[in-house]
């Protein structure tokens, strides 16, 4: 079933990509092929692949249960949060939070996870700042003045 659904999504996306390629403007001075042809070729091959997946699906993959999916979702949210907070919160705080979250999600031992996060945050800061010479802010900017 997974393959059939994926195949369908692939066909729809490939057609959308194809349609969007036809909308590209041909500049006045262009090469014989122009900017449209290559994307249209890719889209055509992708449609064929999608159709094959619909008609000849593989065995169903082992999807994890709902809780595991939630964990993966939380991990993704934590990483997005990290991406947004790296600058405003400073390196130390945001990295410690992200490290703790990932560690806890892999092995649910809170104390170990916090220790892992904090040590990584401090250690990586020292390495990146003083060995690699990256310009990282340790703490939120408003604290650093």
């Amino acid at each position, binding site marked *: 079933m997974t393959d059939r659904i994926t195949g369908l999504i692939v066909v729809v996306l490939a057609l959308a990509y194809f349609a969007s390629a036809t909308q590209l403007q041909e500049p006045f001075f262009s*090469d014989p*092929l122009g*900017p449209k042809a290559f994307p249209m070729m890719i889209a055509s091959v*992708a449609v064929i692949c999608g159709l094959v997946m619909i008609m000849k699906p593989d065995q169903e993959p082992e999807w994890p249960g709902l809780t595991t999916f939630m964990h993966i979702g939380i991990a993704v949210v934590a990483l997005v949060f990290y991406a947004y907070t790296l600058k405003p919160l400073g390196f130390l705080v945001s990295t410690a939070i992200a490290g703790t979250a990932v560690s806890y999600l892999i092995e649910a031992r809170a104390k170990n996870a916090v220790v892992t996060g904090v040590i990584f945050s401090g250690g990586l800061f020292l390495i990146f700042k003083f060995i690699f010479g990256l310009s990282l802010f340790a703490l939120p900017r408003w604290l650093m003045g």
Partner: protein
Amino acid sequence: MDIFANLAIGFDVALSPFTLALAVAGCILGTMIGSLPGLGPSNGVAILIPLTFSFGLDATQALVLMTSVYYGAMYGGRISSILLNIPGDEPAMMTCLDGYPMAKAGRAGDALVLSGVASFVGALLATVGLMLLAPLLASVAYQFGPAEYFALYMLAFATLGGIGSNNQAKAALAVCIGLGIATIGVDASTGMTRFTGDNMHLFDGIDFLVAIVGLFAVSEVLVFIESHGKDSAIGVKLEKVRIPWGDIVRTKWTMLKATAIGFIAGLLPGAGASLGSFLAYMQEKSSVRDNSQFGKGDPRGIAAPEAGNNAAAGGALVPMLTLGVPGSGTTAVLLALLMTLNITPGPTLFNDRPEVVWGLIASLLIANVVLLVLNVPMVKMFSRVLQVSPAILLPGVTLVAFVGIYSLTGSYFDLLLMIGFGVLGYLLRKMDIPSVPVILGILLGGHMEVNLRRAMVLSDGDWTYLFSSGISVGLWIAAVLGFLAPFILRGKLKPPTQSS
């Protein structure tokens, strides 16, 4: 110009203290990365690449460091195959078959040493092969025009999708995803933007390092969260390590044969080390008189795949350096490194930047000796690395990936993109869609389109021009064969299993 003069240039570069230190550091780091289950050469090299830029290394130094990590990881992959029955990386899969049974029979040390020596033989001879063959291939590559390059890219994608995968449609789809992503951004020929959705961040296209780190490293983290990093306790005893001279002498021909097979498999663009170790194992098993011990700890079943995959690792560097077409996932990552350093691999590299090519080759020769020392007398030290908990390792991988990409681009948008690629990589992996073709598509898509359009300019839109030279026709035929081979050979190429 002859090989010895070139090697002299190379050793001059490689023996400078700093470069030498980088090679040794790369070997140690690589062996550790390779031995950790879940971290292989491609994701190991991927997360380290952004750091080489912030470290301010020049092209040769960056390449020496990264290829040492690459070779090291290829050596190290066997350690967890033998001790845990979990391959440290994909090419080390075949080593599980006989390595783990041998370790269970109380000969873990012997298995590690034998496979270390086999790795050395394979990697060293392949480096010599690289040294002899690469300049030759480079001189042929001078005759390549746009039609030939287009055919060559087709060959790379076809072999990757054919021999290298289980499901042709899925591999081809992966290529399309990569090529499609490559078309995002400014069209080099007309200067107009395509498929950016007017998002300013996308005008320059998607940085392939962002995609690589996302697909290889971030997705790995998600996979580990799913599996909760379950059991990685060493199930076998590792006694004092001594050298099993008998086994080494008895498997010398096995190693040499496997090296030749692996090297050739590595040369095929897109096929890579996994194929090398697979073919070497199968060949050995089918050619010996008594193969009843295979899968139960036959020393030949350890020597063959290890020599094969390390030889393939060296072989894969040949098309990467001479043609700009990588032969495996890791060489694709190395190609990304070169492209980011503004070095265009290809025949001209050998004339314009001999210090890069020959410095690299000389460093690889040195790295092999270093790796033999690390992987034979000191192997016990690396077996301890296996006990690092994933709950410590994976956060480290995530954080290094983030800081690496952030230091490279300084944009939170790229971090989000990287997370997106991580999720994509996870889904692809669940559905058994390979992610290496995606990377290769992103890397080569631009060149592929430019060459196709150049060919059409030269021929004024005549498509038969693509098949007008002997070289291009040969490449097209090889591409078709490479893609169709699995349909014909499917029955014969069933992966063997352990019989314990």
